[in-house]
């Protein structure tokens, strides 16, 4: 039995089996397609997912990239990013790489 993943800055994440990032043309929205679930991503969530799950990066590196992209203070966004990713982990949408 696996254990709950606790997301931190040092985590390296990947999509869980069966989870795919998909652009829904009909509704013009980015989504996570998952078992019996469609998670509609708003613009921020899409950026967080894109940076954090790009492959080969840690959550810390993703936060760096997001801080730069949005010209936001790093320590103001890091908690929100980790909280969002923890929510995805708890729904088994992402896993440790």
């Amino acid at each position, binding site marked *: *039995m696996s254990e709950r993943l606790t997301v931190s800055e040092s985590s390296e994440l990947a999509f869980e*089996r069966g989870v795919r990032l998909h652009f829904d043309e009909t*509704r013009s929205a980015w989504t996570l397609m998952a078992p*019996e679930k*469609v998670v509609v991503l708003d613009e921020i969530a899409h950026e967080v997912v894109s940076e954090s799950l790009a492959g080969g990066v840690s959550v810390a590196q993703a936060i760096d990239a997001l801080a730069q992209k949005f010209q936001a203070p790093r320590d103001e966004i890091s908690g929100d990013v980790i909280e969002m990713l923890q929510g995805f982990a708890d729904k*088994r949408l992402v896993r440790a790489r």
Partner: protein
Amino acid sequence: MSELSAPFAILAELTHRCPLRCVYCSNPLELVRRSNELDTGTWRRVLDEAAELGILQVHFSGGEPTVRKDLEELVAHATGRGLYTNLITSGILSDGEQLIRLADAGLAHVQISIQDSDDETGDWIAGYAGAQQKKRDLAVTVADANLALTINAVMHRHNIDRIESVIDMALEMGAQRVEIANVQYYGWGIPNRPNLMPTLDQLESMNAIVLRRQEELKGVLVIDYVVPDYYARRPKACMNGWARRFLNITPSGYVLPCHAAETIPDLVFDNVRDKGLADIWANSTALNRFRGTDWMPEPCSSCEYRERDWGGCRCQALALTGSAENTDPVCELSPFHDQVRALAESESQTREVALTYRSFSKTPETT
């Protein structure tokens, strides 16, 4: 009525053939025979039309969808059109090699049903000796194929006290997710209802265990829980509203809002052999019959919950009150509510009666 939006998912019932004979099967009592199943070309066209209509997910189901020789072709075709594909299977006929071929075709997710954590009772409910072991064997191959795994466990009076070990079994089988669904009384579930209905005490014990384990297993196993509504005070939002988010296509091509809708006698369903899916979605008289809120009688039409529960379930209203147009009698505002509660309590105390197994023959088999 608000503007019609696109559906999100279709249940593609490729066949009604199945090696199992589960006594609560949601398929209709009159099953579609192989000779009347849609052919590969028609399904390919339907999948094209589904993608164009804005559908995102396709659930290949049945019956047992792996009896279709064209399953891999259909999965590949759907994936090629950007659809997310899910296989809902008994797990009896497949092996790891087939799962790898399906994964290569683009399959994302597999759902394997289990009937119990106790193999003997599980096989009895499924009417198939050795079924449970085959399911366990298949589950261990799902991760190798890099597919997501959900275990579907259907609960009733004979297995409800084992809910804890059913959840453990899903964990042992390597699932990321388990659906704990109390039997929904449609199809073959109706004749077997007196044998399956749990007692209120059993339900309350299960509810407590499921809530505790949802918390304990957070981040480990997603537990989706479908409550048994005969004992409820509010109806379920059946299908999130009639023909609002979801379509069901039967093996012979009829387009339904849910798998049980053919029980409603005066509805005329359109068929994908005759019309395009977008046309059917917008114009089918059956799909428009209970869409939205305009059809609602009181107490639904003025109810603050009308766009949350959508009046509950039409098929259940028919089965329990004699009219599909009534408020779902599970709702405490329905004049039939007390009768339904009394029926559940009475049937939960029924002594053992013969099970009616799912079957193609006109005269159902019993034990």
